[in-house]
């Protein structure tokens, strides 16, 4: 239909369409300064409201830390960003989340969203498969079956997760035989292999020892050059060490959202100050 109109009316109209396309893409690029923009987000589990009127913009190639006491809604918020809450029974969302300028509840298919917005969980969750198959899982789901291509993606992802040297000779071994820290980095590699642009991390180091934690933190800092990272953490020190922006949640509300440096040196909210100085939480 569009094609026919173009031919009939001639080059003038075609040019106009072209111009419009440029305008639209510029607009999209303008929006995409923020990877996510969240407007008036409310989330309910049955009758309980778990998130109340959240408004925030998450910037590209930044690490955004979500902090707050247990049950404050930070993990729930994180899981909303790639619609993992879809699987939770009785979960209902109102408001708007735009991912790269598109409404994730209306304009983006949830599967496509999860291809682009990967997730790393609190407990390392390697599948009971070989190391290679773990990393190749995402690409395979996306329909890549060429052996050589898969091998390339696996190597690249493991290199990005800085675990290639440790694992390159063990690709066919079960991933369950790895240490906790290695498993978590393998899971990060598995997430990277699906070619996301955002990585959501849900307390990725809370089950790990200090040395593994440091490796994951270094990795996050390295990855933010190419990815947008949103990390939920219980550790104030961790938020301070690695994040550019910090969001403080309390009882389902976003209390304060600011540059990490400012937030930890001069919090503007009394509750934030109380939390980060360790008076509750």
């Amino acid at each position, binding site marked *: 239909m569009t094609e026919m109109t173009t031919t009939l009316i001639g080059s003038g109209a075609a040019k106009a369409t072209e111009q419009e396309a440029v305008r639209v893409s510029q607009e999209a690029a303008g929006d995409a300064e923020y990877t996510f923009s969240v407007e008036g987000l409310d989330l309910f589990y049955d009758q309980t409201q778990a998130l109340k009127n959240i408004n925030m913009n998450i910037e590209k190639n930044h690490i955004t830390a979500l902090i707050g006491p247990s049950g404050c809604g930070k993990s729930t918020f994180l899981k909303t960003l*790639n619609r*993992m809450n879809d*699987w939770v*029974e009785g979960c209902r969302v109102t408001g708007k989340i735009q991912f790269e300028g598109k409404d994730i509840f209306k304009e983006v298919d949830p*599967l*496509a969203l*999860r*291809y682009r917005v*990967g*997730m790393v*969980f609190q*407990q390392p*969750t390697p*599948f*009971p*498969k070989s190391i290679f198959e773990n990393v190749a*899982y*995402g690409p*395979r*789901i*996306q329909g890549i079956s060429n052996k050589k291509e898969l091998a390339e993606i696996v190597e690249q992802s493991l290199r990005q997760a800085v675990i290639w040297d440790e694992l390159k000779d063990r690709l066919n071994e*079960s991933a*369950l*035989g790895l240490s906790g820290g290695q498993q978590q980095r393998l*899971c990060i590699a*598995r*997430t990277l292999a*699906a070619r996301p642009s955002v990585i959501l991390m849900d307390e990725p180091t809370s089950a790990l020892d200090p040395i593994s934690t440091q490796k994951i933190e270094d990795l996050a800092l390295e990855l933010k050059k190419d990815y947008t990272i949103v990390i939920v953490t219980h550790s104030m020190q961790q938020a301070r060490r690695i994040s550019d922006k910090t969001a403080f949640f309390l009882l389902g509300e976003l209390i304060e959202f600011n540059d990490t440096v400012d937030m930890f040196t001069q919090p503007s909210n009394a509750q934030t100050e109380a939390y980060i100085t360790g008076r509750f939480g």
Partner: protein
Amino acid sequence: MINALALAVRRAHRNEKTARILITLCGIGTALVPFLIGAFLLLKGTDTFFVFHHSLGEFLFSGVWNPSDTAEGGGHVGAAMFLSGSLVTCALALVLSLPLCISTAIFMTEIATPRTRRLIQPAVELFTGIPSVVYGWIGLTVLVPFLRLIFPMPFGFSVLAAGCVLAVMIFPTITTMAADAMAAVPKTWREASYGLGATRWETIAHIVLPAAKGGIFTGIILGLARALGEALAVAMVIGQMKVFPTSLFLPASTLTTAIASDMGGAMEGGEYSAALWTMALTLFLLSFLFIFLIHRLNRASDLKGGK
């Protein structure tokens, strides 16, 4: 006073000792029963070979079944048709029921809401409680005429009928085992799979089923063991003709149906009786093999799952 206390303590120790001895005896005694049965079967079942001098090859592979019902012997003890009848009906039952078992297990663990699950689970378990004679009778009155109606078969009594009845009988065993194994797959694996953009079906096919493989195989073997050992229900619908199971639509016999129908008439100590005992021994050895396989499988999956 002190005396009474000492007495009580002594009595307590004595009771403790008695209880331990009693329980140990019961435990050992129960564990011994299958070994005693095995020993008895070995004793009776090997007469065919050592008293009546038939070869193992004849028993397993010959189709000539004509044992003499005397202590002198001299007949033929080829049990290949019963053996093949048993194997064919079991395999058929498995082929018929496995897709349904796996589907039901997937439905129960992955798709059904908790309320539906609470409804289906007891229904599936109820299957196990129905006596085999009931299965056989329903097979006889419903299935056999039905099969005769829709397939080109002379009697309705057939290998197919036996396979169908057995399929229903092993359904709960395999389904329950498979569902338990799938439910035991950690939720975190499913979430990780969803997080990578997998659909529910992709998650089931690539994560849940492979992880539950061990439990599903155990279910299959238990189901096969039940199918192999079932005599009554099979005897009621298979037609019990002493022929090889050459067609799904014709009657045949199995090890169990042959034993059940002929043991009463065979003279104790005769060749006929010895041949039947050998068939019983074969059944025992096959179940033994099944149990052995289950243990091997479980150990293999323990090794793979362990750190």
